[in-house]
């Protein structure tokens, strides 16, 4: 039992989890300090709202989590390939636009219409995601610049196309008309909230992506090129094709996010069903970056991190009662991103300090109580070194996927691993004795 717990604690995803927690902690603390500076007497009450309000409004937390879950998946999926898809905003807007087009221009029966709109959003996002992919793969243009430029181009283009369409745009309200009822996503029927079927679709997609990443050849190749571009090319993987395909999938995911956002049945006026062309880049795309980073780019992690971000956003929107502004959450989110860029390093540094302290404490104890125990130590160290070196190929997911040869190796590794583990177990017993 202890052994299993130990292996969980030492696993990569656990370490990603703790470093995400560290980033969140620092982000919230700094957010609290900002609130203290702005309005000291209300800061604690507002902070409490940010932390706990979401629990009283779970339906809307899930509703607002859906679009950022999709953009988070879009960013995270591309991250696995080593691409930084900063263009989720543009893809999101394009998906939204295509869904609007299908909603206004197609006349389909209820039950099919919303599905078609969702698919249209998927296609829109795919198209917009493909462009940076093609630029990167064929022309060697950095995807960060391309996708930023296409955020602007996409936003301006969509706003302009909407304004020029008499069927969609209502000049008197400076926004589009409301979508027909048949294009609405089916609601899940939670009182006072707009939570709808899209959250279920989003979670299913996240699981599907997990399967693709961990159980298919494509996912394997993708991660391989993410780890080492040159090695994967040497192994005969088609990098050009994979880059474009990854960006198409990522774009499609973000596009779905846009479609889900615009097609949701709304209980909050203006939050969905209609679009206001004001030349502002969609914030949900950038929030997707935070979601992906917090979730360690893993599809399953993204599910939880998107719900968390949505949770503090709901809480943040409530702070306006106390004289704060919801933008405080954007501050917190960007600080979280800032710290998550190096929280792993920071956590290791903190961990090192702690282990050093721990060692010192142990040493002093040993020196005081059991002078002979220093006799055991060198052997101990060697064995733990040995264990680490055996452990390493095992940790490397790429090396142990899908491949027969590798599987054999893996088995061997596992055996040796178990042996060393037994040794260490015995040693622990010895020590206890």
């Amino acid at each position, binding site marked *: 039992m202890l052994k299993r717990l130990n292996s969980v604690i030492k696993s990569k995803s656990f370490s990603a989890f703790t470093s995400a927690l560290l980033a969140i902690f620092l982000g919230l603390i700094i957010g609290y300090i*900002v609130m203290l500076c*702005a*309005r000291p007497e209300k800061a604690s009450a507002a902070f409490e709202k940010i932390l706990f309000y979401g629990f009283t409004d779970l339906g809307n937390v899930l509703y607002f989590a859906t679009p950022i879950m999709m953009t988070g998946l879009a960013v995270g999926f591309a991250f696995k390939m080593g691409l*930084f898809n*900063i263009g989720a905003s543009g893809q999101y807007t394009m998906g939204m636009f295509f869904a609007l087009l299908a909603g206004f221009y197609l006349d389909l029966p209820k039950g099919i219409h919303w599905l078609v709109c969702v698919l249209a959003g998927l296609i829109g996002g795919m198209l917009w995601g493909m462009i940076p992919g093609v*630029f990167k793969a064929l*022309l*060697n*243009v*950095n995807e*960060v*610049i*391309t996708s*930023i*430029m*296409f955020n*602007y*181009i996409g936003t*301006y*283009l969509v*706003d*302009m196309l909407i*304004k*020029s369409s008499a069927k969609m745009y209502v000049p008197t309200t400076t926004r589009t008309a409301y979508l027909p009822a048949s294009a609405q996503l089916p609601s899940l029927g939670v009182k006072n909230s707009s939570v709808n079927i899209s959250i279920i679709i989003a979670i299913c997609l996240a699981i599907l992506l997990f399967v693709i990443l961990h159980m298919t050849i494509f996912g394997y190749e993708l991660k391989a090129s993410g780890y080492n571009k040159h090695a994967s090319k040497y192994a005969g993987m088609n990098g050009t094709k994979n880059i474009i395909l990854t960006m198409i999938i990522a774009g499609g995911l973000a596009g779905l996010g846009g479609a889900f956002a615009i097609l949701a049945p709304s209980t909050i006026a203006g939050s969905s069903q209609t679009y206001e062309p004001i*030349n*502002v880049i969609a914030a949900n795309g*950038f929030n997707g*970056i935070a979601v992906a*980073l917090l979730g360690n780019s893993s599809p399953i992690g993204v599910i939880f991190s998107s719900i968390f971000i949505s949770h503090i956003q709901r809480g943040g929107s409530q702070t306006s009662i106390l*004289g*704060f*502004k919801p*933008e*405080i959450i*954007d*501050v917190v*989110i*960007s*600080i979280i*991103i*800032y710290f*998550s*860029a*190096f929280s792993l*390093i*920071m956590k290791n540094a903190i961990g090192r300090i702690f282990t050093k302290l721990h060692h010192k404490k142990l040493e002093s104890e040993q020196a005081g109580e059991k002078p002979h125990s220093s006799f055991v130590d060198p052997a101990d160290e060697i064995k733990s070194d040995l264990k680490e070196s055996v452990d390493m190929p095992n940790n490397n997911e790429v090396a142990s996927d899908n491949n027969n040869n590798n599987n054999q190796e893996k088995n061997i590794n596992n055996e040796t691993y178990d042996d060393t583990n037994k040794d260490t177990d015995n040693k622990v017993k010895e020590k206890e004795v």
Partner: protein
Amino acid sequence: MDIVYYLVQNTLPVAVALLLVALGGMFSERSGVINIALEGIMLFGAYIGCLFVYFIEKNPIPAQVIFLLAMLIAALAGLIYSLLLSWAAINMKADQTIVGTALNMLVPAVILLFSKMFFMSDGVTTKTRFYIREVKGLSNIPVIGKLFFQNTYLSIYIGGLILIIATIVFYKTRFGLRLRACGEHPQAADSVGINVHRMRYAGVAISGILGGMGGFFYAVGVTDGNTNGHTGVAGFGFLALAVLIFGQWKPIQIMFAALFFAFLRTLAYSVALIPFLKSLNISQDYYKMLPYIATMIVLAFTSKRSRAPKAEGIPYDKGMR
């Protein structure tokens, strides 16, 4: 001919903002740190500069003096903000692109929060006009007087001066050589006794100073003293990065690239004044996309043979070979 004068007079203030920010990016990237945060640094400089003008403009101080003071304040703001990037990128060895993105997101959020809580608005708008109708004595020179000394801003002369200084520092001083070495092969630089961390701090700091100044010039020359958290600097920090790549990380080429982009932007916003473009009868919104689309086309053709600094984006690790 009047149209040409008009276009040049309106291109220069835009170009100078792009030029300064791109030069800043050049110092940062040639020292080995990718500076995606230019957009955030610009906006921060612009906001602090405008805030300074907002508070000081009630006093009877000549406009151009306010301009110079605000410029220095903006530069200082940019410098301080850039420290967040250099600390994360150099000391903490963080992923520079992600840190830059976070810094870009932080500024608009802070501006909106601060302005909404204390000004009940999205940003700050200054009243002072820094516009120079004509420079006495020089404005009557034929052609040149009209191009450079009428309807202009102090910023373009400062920009020209900085371009010259930057070029000299970059190519003719020991500091410039060392900086460039750190971006190409930091291990080699370290082996001959150059402090790579300090050089990179200097590179990012210069990009902070120039980025902050460029942001203030943008706020003065392009948005008439308005800085808000919604539109920010409209992607100018990113355009400056494109200018940097198009200019192949070299100061003089960067100047031409900045002029090119600024000209396109000016063209996009003055369609109604140019008979030929007006007769095409295309919505002005199309032209607004022009600088961004042009960026993509230019990058598509130049990226294959791009000469990016070799060690760009890689945290310096002494133990690495």
